[in-house]
Structure formats: C-alpha cells, structure tokens
C-alpha cells in the first residue's frame, strides 16, 4: 500500500514537473541556446538592413568629452549629495518630487495645447487643480492615485518633433546630458514657462532650486546610471541610442 502511494506520488510529481520545466532540466551551462531556432521564422522586420538604428553623431569626440564631464560630475558631486540626502525618508522625497512636478504644470499644459492634445491638456489642468487643493499644494498626487489621471510629460522638444522638425545630430550638453539641437531649443523655450524664475528674484536662487529638484530626483532613482555603467559594453553608445528611441516614442505617443 505504502509503496503504491509512493509510486503514485512520484509519477504525479514527474508529470507535474516534466511539461513545464522540461527545458530547465537541461544543463544551463550546456549551450542549449546555441542551436538555431527550430524553425526559420523571424519575428523581426528588416532583419538584415544596414543601419536600421544608427543615430547621427558627427561630433562624437565632443560628445564623448561632455559625456565624460557629466559622468565625473555625477559620480563625484551629484550622486554623493543625493546619497547623503537619502537620510530623508522616502515618502517625504516622493512628496518633494510631486511638488516640483506640480509646479512644472504650465510647461506640460502649454505643450499639450500646442500639439492639439486637448484631452491631455484637460487632464493636466485637472491634475493641477486636484493636486494643489486635495493634494496639499502638490505634495501628494491624488489625481493619479485616486482618479487615475496620468501625468502627460510633454515638452517643447516633443512639440517641435510633432510638427515634423527633425532632431538633428546627437548632442551631449554639459550638466543636462543627452540632447539634440531640437530638444536643446525646446529646453530654452520651456524655460520661459517655468514658474520658478518669476517667483524668485535672484538667478542663484533659481539654480539652487533646480539643483535641489535634480538631487531629490536622483535620490529616488534606483542607480540606473550605475547599472548602465556596469552592464553595457559602451555606456555612451547605450545612452545615445536609448535617448533617441525614447524621444521618438514620446513624440509618437
């Protein structure tokens, strides 16, 4: 009797494991993956096209120099400060981030309107009203948490892209990082709608506030840049392509 039960159990176990994990039983170090796929079907289009994904980067030596500069700035100044600042409890830092994001509403709202995205513009306006009142001056985000109104990150670079203005060559800006002429111009334009220079008298105060926003944001980031540096063969190339992909997608969305 005992034996029979054990036999049943074993068979049951084998049945349970075999179909789902047949592949797992193969020694993972043996190169199961080397063999070509069982069939020739490729899920990709333009499989062997040349330069399907190249980013135009004629001033690469300059860009790499700026990349190096930003890298040092990050590791020797911004990140240590952000790391020390992490003594502030995370919920408080999330609230600070919400506050800065709420203040920046005019930039997003104007760019939604410029792209005729009226439902998005309406949501941005609604988010501002709800979060400024119910969200205690923008410290909380009940518009998203309770009402499901997502923030729409629009900026002038995307608006220019929406009207068909090409990105132009890749450009790494000191302090600001990956960009291109279109997005750099957009950045300046968005500066006009940024409320901070209108509330603060001195330029250094604006710079201090902007730096604080950045440090706060970095303190919430889970070391993305460190991971890229650790994992990628050439972090410069990775970020160049990721930036181009992301901006293209944001313009389309």
């Amino acid at each position: 009797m005992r034996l029979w039960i054990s036999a049943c159990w074993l068979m049951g176990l084998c049945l349970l494991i075999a179909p789902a994990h047949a592949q797992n039983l193969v020694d993972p170090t043996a190169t199961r993956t080397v063999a070509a796929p069982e069939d020739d079907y490729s899920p990709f289009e333009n499989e062997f096209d040349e330069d399907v994904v190249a980013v135009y980067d004629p001033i690469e030596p300059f860009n790499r120099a700026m990349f190096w500069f930003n890298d040092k700035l990050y590791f020797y100044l911004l990140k240590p400060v952000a790391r020390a600042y992490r003594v502030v409890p995370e919920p408080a830092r999330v609230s600070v981030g919400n506050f800065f994001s709420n203040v920046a509403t005019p930039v997003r709202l104007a760019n939604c309107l410029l792209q005729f995205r009226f439902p998005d513009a309406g949501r941005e306006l609604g988010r501002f009203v709800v979060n400024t009142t119910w969200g205690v001056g923008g410290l909380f985000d009940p518009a998203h948490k309770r009402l499901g109104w997502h923030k729409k990150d629009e900026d002038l670079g995307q608006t220019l892209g929406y009207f068909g203005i090409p990105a132009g060559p890749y450009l790494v800006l000191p302090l600001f990082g990956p960009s291109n002429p279109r997005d750099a111009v957009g950045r300046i334009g968005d500066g006009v709608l940024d409320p901070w220079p209108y509330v603060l008298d001195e330029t250094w105060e604006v710079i201090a506030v902007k730096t604080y926003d950045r440090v706060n944001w970095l303190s919430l980031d889970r070391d993305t840049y460190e991971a890229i540096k650790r994992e990628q063969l050439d972090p410069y190339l990775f970020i160049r392509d990721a930036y181009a992909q992301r901006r293209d997608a944001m313009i389309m969305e």
Partner: protein
Amino acid sequence: MKHANFLYPLLVFLLLAVAAPVCAQAGPQAQLKETVDAVLAVLRDGGLGAAAKRERISPLVRARFDFPTMAQWVLGPQWRQASATEQERFVVLFSDLLEATYIGRIDEYSGEEVVFVGEQIEDRRAQVDTKVMTRSAEIPINYRLVSRGEDWLVFDVIIENVSLVRNYRSSFSEIVRREGMNGLFAQMEQRISELKAGGKAG
C-alpha cells in the same frame, strides 16, 4: 485514514489530467507570468542566499528567452558576414551577457510588484505589457514574444519605450565596425566576467 491515503494520489492525478492540457495551450501572458512569478518567488525567498537565488533564476530565464533569435538580429548585417563558428560563439556570449545582466540585478530587488496589463497576439508574435510598481514610479516593461512550438519565448524587452535588442544592435554594430568581431568578443567576455565577479562580491 486509509481512505484518505488512497484518495489523495487519485485527486492529484485528476488535477493533473485537467491542468496539463491547459498548461500546454497557455497564451503568451500566462506563460510569461509563470516565469515572472517563479522568479519573484525565488527573489522573495528569504531563506536563500544570493548564490542560490542566482542558480535558480538562471534556468528560468534561459527557458523563457529566445537568445538565438535575439543574437541574430542584434548582429544584423554582420551576422551574415560572420563565419559559423563566430555566429555560434556570439550566441553563447550574448546569452551569457544577458543572463549575467539580468541576474546582476537580483540584489536590487526590494519587493516591487509586477502588474500584467494585457497581451496582444498577432500571428506568431505577441506583446505582453507589464508595469513594475516601485514606491515612487510605475515603470512600463513590455515583452515581445514569438511562438516556437508550444512555447512563447521572449525576443525583445521594451523598457520605458526603449527596445533592448535595438539598443544592443546599435551599440554592437558600432563596436564591430571599430574593433572587428574579435574586439566585440573580447569586450563581451570581459563584461561577463566582471558582472559575475561583481555579483559574487555583492
């Protein structure tokens, strides 16, 4: 007591008879979820050390990713110019690199939830949209899968609109252009050993 002993294996068999066909036909989202849930279960297992976690996650990842397909597309035009041995070597290195990358992130896990948003199937391709919920943000991670036999295998991961294979292709083709295939292999080997060493130290 005797009856209970007798019934239990029977019940297991019945359950399996019902469950097995369902498993075989599971769609891309169900299959991906199975892998993600299994990985999360390992990550949340407080009793396991970092090395044990790595050992368990590795086969899970390898079984769900279509590394040969990814590798082929990542090399793009250079795949055709490469010799058979180079192609084979590249697939091995690329699989190891992706695995080391994925597994290197184990230590960063701090209880994030993965939400499955939905799936779209188009012929033999599918996309499964997920969101990783961190305390301060929702990170959209979309998986593209291809059906191979009974399995749906991942051939691209799109994180915040950035396609992983597209990005690798862009980087790798630059490196091959500058340093040739052997230069690429050397860099990949170095990165793999660094990632593995870093994982052990941390």
